C-alpha cells in the first residue's frame, strides 16, 4: 500500500508548552488511522498543522511521497485534505447548501447558483449515506446532522483525506453507529480517514491502525488487530488505569434536594421542563441520563436559582429556594460543576488563584476587613494545586491557558473544597481524557462517601452507570423513568432516552438485595 501522508519531525511550540515534539508518522492510503491520546497530548495541534491552520516550527509534510508546504486551509483543501473540527465550523444562520459551497467558486462565479449546488449536495449525501436536507438552516439540525454537513463540506471539495477531530464526543450512541457506517463507506470509496479520539473502544471498533501520542510525542503506532484496550490505555496514560470503580456501600441519609413538579421555559420560550420531580439524599449519586438538549441545562439553572420556575418548587435541605438568589443557594452548601466550564466554570482571563476563590472571595480567610489576604489566598491555591494535581506553571497563570483537564480540576477544586452538602455535576468529564475522567469520578465517589448528595447529569450513559446509585431518564423535559443502577436495563434506558418508552408513574424498580 502506498503512503498517503508522511509527517517528519513536526515540532510546534506554544508559549510555555511544546505541543508537538518531533512527531513522525505515516498514514496509508485507504485506512482509518486513529490518533489516540489524552487531552493536551498534541493530537489537534498536529492535525491543525496538517490542515494549514498552524505553521509548524520545524518538520516536513510529505503527500504521496512529495514534500509539500501547507500554509493555509486553502492549500490543504487543494491537496485534498478535509477536516471536521471538534467545534463545528458551520454558520448557523446559513442553509446546509450555503455552508457547503461557502468559499468555493461556482460555475458562473460570482453568481450563486443555489439549485445546482443543492443538487450536488444531494448527490454526495446519497452516495455516502449522509442523510441531510440541503435546504434546512443549520441551526435547526441535530448535532449528528451538523457533523454530516461538515463531512459533505469536505467531500464537496473532493477531499481524499478526511481528518475527524473527536467526532463522537457530541453524538448519541445511535448517531455514532451512523457515523461509523459512513466512515466505512468512505474508505470503501478510496478515502483515507484520520480519526482523533481518546475513546479506546471506538478506536478498536473503527480503526485499522493507531498512533498513540503522549505529551506531544509519539509513543507507538500499532495495528488494532494486534492490540487491546488495556494496552492502548497504558500507552496513552503511561500507567495502568482502572475503569471499574468499587463503590462503598452507603445508606442514603436525609434528603438534600427535592424537586417537586417543576416546570420551566427555555431561553427560547418553549417548555423545557415539564412537571419534573426528583430527590437526592445524602450519600447518594443520582444520575440524570438523556441526550443533550432535553432540559438538562434548564434543570441545573432552576436548581441554582438562575431560571424562573413556572410551576412547582425546589427544596434544598428541606427549605424552599427563591429564584434570583443564587448567592444564598451557594451559601446553603450547594456546589455546581457547570456544563460548560469555559462559559460558566471559570473566567479565562483570571489567574488560577483568582478562579479558585471565586465562590468564597468574600469570606474568611480570603477576605479580612474588606481586603484580600494574599498570603491566605496563595497558600490555599498552592494547597489546591497539590491536592488536585493541577498541572500549571504557577498559581498566577491565566486559567484560559490551561488544558481542558486541568481547567476541570480547577473547577473541581473550587467546588469540592467547600465541603458542599449537595453537588450538581453537569457533564463533569466532558472532553476529558481517560486519566482525568477516572480522577473526576473518584473524587465524586469520595464526596459521596463523605456524605454529600450528588446530582450527576451526563449524556454519557457509561458514566452514569459506573458511579450513580440511582438514575432517572430525561426526555424533552420529562422524566421517563427511574431505577436503581444495579438493576438497570440498558435496553429500557435506550428506549426511554429516545422517548419511545415511559415508565408508568410512581413505579421504581425495586432496590436490589
Amino acid at each position, binding site marked *: 500500500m502506498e503512503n498517503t501522508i508522511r509527517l517528519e519531525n513536526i515540532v510546534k511550540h506554544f508559549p510555555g508548552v511544546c505541543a508537538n515534539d518531533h512527531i513522525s508518522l505515516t498514514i496509508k492510503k485507504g485506512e482509518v488511522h486513529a490518533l489516540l491520546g489524552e487531552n493536551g497530548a498534541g493530537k489537534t495541534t498536529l492535525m491543525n498543522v496538517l490542515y494549514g*491552520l*498552524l505553521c509548524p516550527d520545524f518538520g516536513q509534510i510529505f503527500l504521496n511521497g512529495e514534500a509539500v508546504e501547507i500554509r493555509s*486551509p486553502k492549500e490543504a*483543501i487543494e491537496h485534498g485534505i478535509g477536516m471536521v473540527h471538534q467545534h463545528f*465550523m458551520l*454558520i448557523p444562520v*446559513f442553509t446546509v447548501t450555503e455552508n457547503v459551497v461557502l468559499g468555493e467558486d461556482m460555475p458562473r462565479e460570482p453568481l*450563486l447558483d443555489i439549485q445546482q449546488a443543492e443538487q450536488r449536495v444531494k448527490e454526495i449525501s446519497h452516495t455516502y449515506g449522509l442523510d441531510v436536507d440541503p435546504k434546512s438552516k443549520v441551526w435547526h439540525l441535530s448535532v449528528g446532522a451538523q457533523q454530516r454537513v461538515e463531512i459533505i463540506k469536505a467531500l464537496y471539495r473532493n477531499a481524499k483525506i478526511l481528518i475527524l477531530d473527536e467526532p463522537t464526543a457530541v453524538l448519541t450512541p445511535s448517531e455514532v453507529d451512523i457515523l461509523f457506517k459512513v466512515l466505512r463507506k468512505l474508505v470503501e470509496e478510496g478515502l483515507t480517514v484520520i480519526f482523533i479520539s481518546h475513546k479506546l473502544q471506538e478506536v478498536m471498533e473503527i480503526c485499522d491502525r493507531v498512533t498513540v501520542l503522549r505529551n506531544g510525542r509519539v509513543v507507538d503506532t500499532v495495528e488494532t488487530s494486534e492490540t487491546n484496550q488495556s494496552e492502548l490505555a497504558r500507552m496513552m496514560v503511561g500507567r495502568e488505569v482502572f475503569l471499574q470503580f468499587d463503590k462503598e456501600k452507603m445508606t442514603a441519609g436525609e434528603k438534600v434536594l427535592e424537586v417537586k413538579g417543576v416546570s420551566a421555559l427555555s431561553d427560547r420560550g418553549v417548555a423545557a421542563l415539564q412537571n419534573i420531580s426528583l430527590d437526592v439524599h445524602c450519600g447518594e449519586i443520582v444520575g440524570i441520563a438523556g441526550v443533550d438538549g432535553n432540559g438538562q441545562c434548564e434543570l441545573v439553572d432552576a436548581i441554582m436559582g438562575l431560571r424562573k420556575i413556572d410551576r412547582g418548587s425546589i427544596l434544598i435541605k428541606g427549605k424552599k429556594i427563591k429564584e434570583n438568589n443564587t448567592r444564598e443557594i451557594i451559601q446553603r452548601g450547594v456546589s455546581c460543576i457547570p456544563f460548560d466550564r469555559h462559559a460558566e466554570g471559570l473566567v479565562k482571563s483570571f489567574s488560577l488563584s483568582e478562579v479558585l476563590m471565586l465562590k468564597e472571595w468574600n469570606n474568611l480567610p480570603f477576605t479580612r476587613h474588606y481586603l484580600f489576604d494574599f498570603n491566605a489566598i496563595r497558600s490555599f491555591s498552592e494547597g489546591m494545586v497539590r491536592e488536585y494535581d493541577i498541572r500549571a506553571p504557577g498559581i498566577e497563570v491565566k486559567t484560559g491557558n490551561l488544558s481542558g483537564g486541568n481547567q476541570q480540576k480547577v473547577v473541581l477544586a473550587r467546588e469540592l473544597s467547600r465541603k458542599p452538602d449537595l453537588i450538581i455535576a453537569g457533564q463533569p468529564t466532558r472532553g476529558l481524557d481517560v486519566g482525568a475522567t477516572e480522577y473526576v469520578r473518584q473524587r465524586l465517589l469520595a464526596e459521596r462517601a463523605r456524605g454529600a448528595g450528588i446530582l450527576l447529569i451526563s449524556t454519557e450513559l457509561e458514566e452514569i452507570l459506573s458511579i450513580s446509585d440511582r438514575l432517572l431518564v430525561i426526555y424533552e423535559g420529562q422524566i421517563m423513568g427511574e431505577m436503581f443502577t444495579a438493576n438497570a436495563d440498558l435496553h429500557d434506558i435506550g428506549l426511554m432516552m429516545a422517548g419511545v418508552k415511559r415508565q408508568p408513574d410512581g413505579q421504581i424498580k425495586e432496590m436490589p438485595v
Partner: protein
Amino acid sequence: MGIEVFLGLFTVEFFYATIRMASPIALAALGEVYVEKAGILNLGIEATMLMGAFFGVLGSALSGSAFVGVLTAMAAGMLTGLLFGFLVITMRANQIVTGAALNIAALGMTSFLSRIIFGVRLLPVQVQGIKPLPIPFLKDIPGLGKILFEQTPLVYFTYFMVIVMTYALYRTTWGLKIRSVGEHPRAAETLGISVIRWRYGCVLLGGALGGIAGSILSLAQLSTFVDNMIAGRGFIALAAVIFGRWNPLGAAAAALVFGAADAMQMRVQAFSLNLPSDFLLMLPYLITLIGVIIFRGRAAAPVALTKPYEKEATA
C-alpha cells in the same frame, strides 16, 4: 392644526423631498450594512460623510466640475474607511471608540480646512453643484414620475445601488463570503476565505458610499460646505441599518422613513405653524430614537459584530 392642513402636507413636493433627503442616508446605510455584515460596526459613518461633503466641495471648487467633486468625495470616504479599517482590523482597536474618535477628528479637520482653504467669509463659498436630471419618458409617469425621476443623478445612483447590493449580498458567492465573515470568521478562514481582506473590502466600500452620501448633502443640496453639515445623519444611517434588520432593502426603506421625517420638518416650517422650529428640527432624530426602540434586539445582527479577528489560534 386641522386635518385638511395636515393632509395638505402630503403633496408631490413632500414626497419629492422625502426621496431627496432619504438618498444620502440610504446610500450611507447601504455601505454600513455591508460593513456590519462583515462583522464591523463603523460608528464613524458621520466622519466618512463629513469628509465626503467637504472634499466633494473642494474637488468641485478646484476642478469646476461637480462630477470630479463626487469622485473626490468618494476617494476621501475611502481613505477615511481605510484608516478606520487599519485601526480596527489590523490593529484590532475597539470599534466603538475608534469610530467615535474619527467623528470628532473629522469634525475638527473639515472645519479647520474649510477656513484655511476658503477663508472666513460672510457668505459660504458656492461651487458647481449637482443639478437634477429628469429622465425622459419616466418623468412623465403620472405622480411617481415627478417624485422619482426628476432627481439628481446621485439619487438614481442610490436606486441602482439598492438593487445591486441587495442582489449581491444574497445571490452571489461574494455576498455569501461577506456574511460568513461576520457570522463565524473562524469557519470562513478554515474554508480559505481571507477574513481580513473581505473586511477591508467592505470597509472601503462603506467608505466610498459614505463619501458619496456626504457629497449629496454638500453638492446636490446646498452647493457649499458648512461646518458639521452632516448633523447626525451618519448616526441616522446607523439606525437605519438596525431598523432595516441588516438587510440592504430594509435599510433603504428605513432611510425613506427618516427622509420623510426630514421632509416633514421642512414642510411644517414652510407652513409657519405656531411651533418652535427647534422642535421640528428634532423630528427626524426623535423618529430615529423611537424606531430603534421598536426594532431593538440583536436577533438579526451578525454574530461576530464588533469582535476583532485574530488569525492564529493559540490552542
